[in-house]
């Protein structure tokens, strides 16, 4: 069992857990992920490390409430325990020296933050591009601002409720035009990653994407997380989750991500009904 040490709520639907997991904390790297099974009947869900501390023996991950498992997780409190936490899994994010644009969209900001922080800590200039649909969904602004100067933090919202109105490709394109960026890292929804990639290609700048397909075991045993990269089938859990974004088949990824939408709806509905029955 893995004890919840801290629970932080960022917005209505976005939470962070700090979990007691000394073995994971000792071996975690930016870009890697863990698999959580909340209880005996739970499913296995991947979450990227948001932060970790080897001395204190904890790891953190951020999640947004979207389905049954995340709804249930949001009801867990400090002192409760998660049944299983496995990791670290996947390849650490590779860093090259130079100036970076690290793009995070929505809950992807939780993955972008440790990557951006680590790139900066290694002596690189980093521009953080933070995108969200609306102000309420913008994550970790304080954390980003505590690491980066204001002129290195670029915020966009789809509805213009905060920062620049529009999508992340606008500030990305400006930086690329000014010749300020050598490498790009992006993580977020498929359309965001796809259009960031198109922008990067226009300026012939290398771009890495952290992919988020459905996973079951997370150790390369099942192939549920397979993605097509450069015409070859790759397992995101062992070969990734980071890949050369210019080679990713985005339509393939999106189709596989959507494979269980009906079942996910059923699971959430059944859970909410059970919760209502409890309250009655």
């Amino acid at each position, binding site marked *: 069992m893995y004890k919840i040490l801290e629970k932080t709520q960022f917005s209505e639907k976005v939470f962070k857990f700090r979990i007691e997991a000394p073995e994971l904390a000792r*071996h975690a790297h930016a870009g890697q992920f863990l698999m959580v099974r909340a209880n005996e009947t739970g499913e296995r869900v991947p979450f990227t490390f948001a932060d970790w501390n080897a001395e204190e023996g904890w790891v953190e991950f951020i999640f947004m409430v979207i389905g049954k498992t995340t709804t249930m997780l949001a009801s867990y409190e400090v002192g409760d325990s998660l049944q299983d936490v496995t990791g670290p*899994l996947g390849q650490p994010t590779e860093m090259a020296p130079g100036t970076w644009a690290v793009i995070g969209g929505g809950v992807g900001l939780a993955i972008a933050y440790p990557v951006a922080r680590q790139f900066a800590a290694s002596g690189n200039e980093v521009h953080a591009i933070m995108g969200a649909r609306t102000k309420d969904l913008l994550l970790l602004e304080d954390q980003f601002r505590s690491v980066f100067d204001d002129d290195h933090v670029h915020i966009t919202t789809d509805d213009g409720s905060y920062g620049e109105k529009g999508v992340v490709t606008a500030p990305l394109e400006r930086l690329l035009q000014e010749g300020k960026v050598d490498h790009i890292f992006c993580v977020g929804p498929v359309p965001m990653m796809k259009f960031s990639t198109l922008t990067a290609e226009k300026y012939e700048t290398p771009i890495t994407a952290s992919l988020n397909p459905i996973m079951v075991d997370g150790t*390369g045993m099942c192939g549920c997380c397979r993605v097509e990269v450069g015409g070859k089938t790759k397992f995101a859990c062992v070969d990734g989750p980071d890949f050369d974004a210019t080679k990713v088949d985005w339509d393939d990824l999106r189709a596989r991500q959507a494979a269980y939408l009906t079942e996910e709806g059923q*699971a959430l509905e059944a859970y909410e009904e059970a919760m209502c029955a409890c309250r009655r």
Partner: protein
Amino acid sequence: MPQVNGRFVPDMKSPRTPDNEEPAAERACDFRPVDKGFTKEMALAEAERCMDCKKPLCVEGCPVNINIPKFIEKIREQKFGEALDVIREDSMLPAICGRVCPQENQCEGKCVRGKKGEPVAIGQLERFLGDQPELASTPKMAPKNGKKVAVVGSGPSGITCAGELARNGFDVTVFEAFFTGGGVLVYGIPEFRLPKAVVKREIDGLMDLGVKFEYNAVVGRITDADELFEMGYDAIYIATGAGLPKFLNVPGENLPNVFFANEYLTRVNLMKANRFPEYDTPTKHGKRVVVFGGGNVAMDAVRTAKRLGAEHAIICYRRTEAEMPARRAELHHAKAEGVEVRELVAPLEFVKGEDGCVCAVRVQKMKLGEPDESGRRRPVPIEGAVEEIPCDVAISAIGTNANPFAKMIGDIKLNKWGYIIADEEGRTSDPRIWAGGDIVTGAATVILAMGAGKTAAASITKALVG
């Protein structure tokens, strides 16, 4: 018991005792165990059929050389506890092996009675005993020798090695990546063939012997060989298996609702997707399910599909039934449950339907040509003979490759396919590391993996305590 001049006389007239099975039509609707196993009366009758050969070929046919005539003799004498003790001298997992060994290629395949009729049902007799573990004597434990061994992987090879080492006085810890122990016994082989309670009982038995289990521990990620040695382990046994699915390498393989058998089986066996939404993991309940492959994994997948409600569950194999590597019993069970078998077809393409998911597979019809290096006749395509089989779920069960974590555990030599190079005692290129099971041999059988675990345990014992 019939005897002449004090000597046992085998019953040469009785036919082989038939398996005690649930009716096919009923069992194919749920995950209940198909085979209920022998009753005491059935076991006694079957034991009478053994000829008690002076040079028992069945023992040679068993990969761990269980003294088969001796345990059958004990059954005849109704000394079931002693019979179980005889088996446990060579195998600690009779309830599992009796169920999943391909006996027709092993012990029963060598049985003299099989030459002119039906061999003795050795597997069923072993299982009959294995299902009564309370009858066995407590294994003799060597005094603690103060040495620590780390076993990586809790599949049949790892748990056999761990059990043997514990009996030999070692302090043993098994590291397992999943949240529960058993490897393929829990995520691969379905409940209807091997109840998970049986696996749990065997693991609990090992814990009673003092073996410790660390779950959610992906060695190679969470720790590695160097760290384990620093932590005070004196030796490591690597038994991570061969779990990485092989690709068919045909177009459309990544379409939604096309599965590798490992994922399909893991969702149901380990995550209990058949009980969704009581359990959170979903799966796809196809009405028309096509499975490619001819091994046990393909049989398990197609029979699982049937139990998830498939009206048409079809096995497609590129050779003929005669060449299928699956256990004969499973092929018979599958057919009795209404599984269709399509011989001599190979996949060409998975076809995308209007909803973006797989809607059919195009297959190439084959014929058998000359024998290949394995002695089996090679399938060759019949030019122009292409057919489309409609389906809403397709499953690839054509085999697996080496587990990708093997190379991250320690600096040991691998062959070009990523399998660990080990000698006949399981020793790798690092004198402190042993390996065995599928990660050395490639995908094989449960009993061979167990045999490797047992051999390595003996070798580790010899190396560390002389």
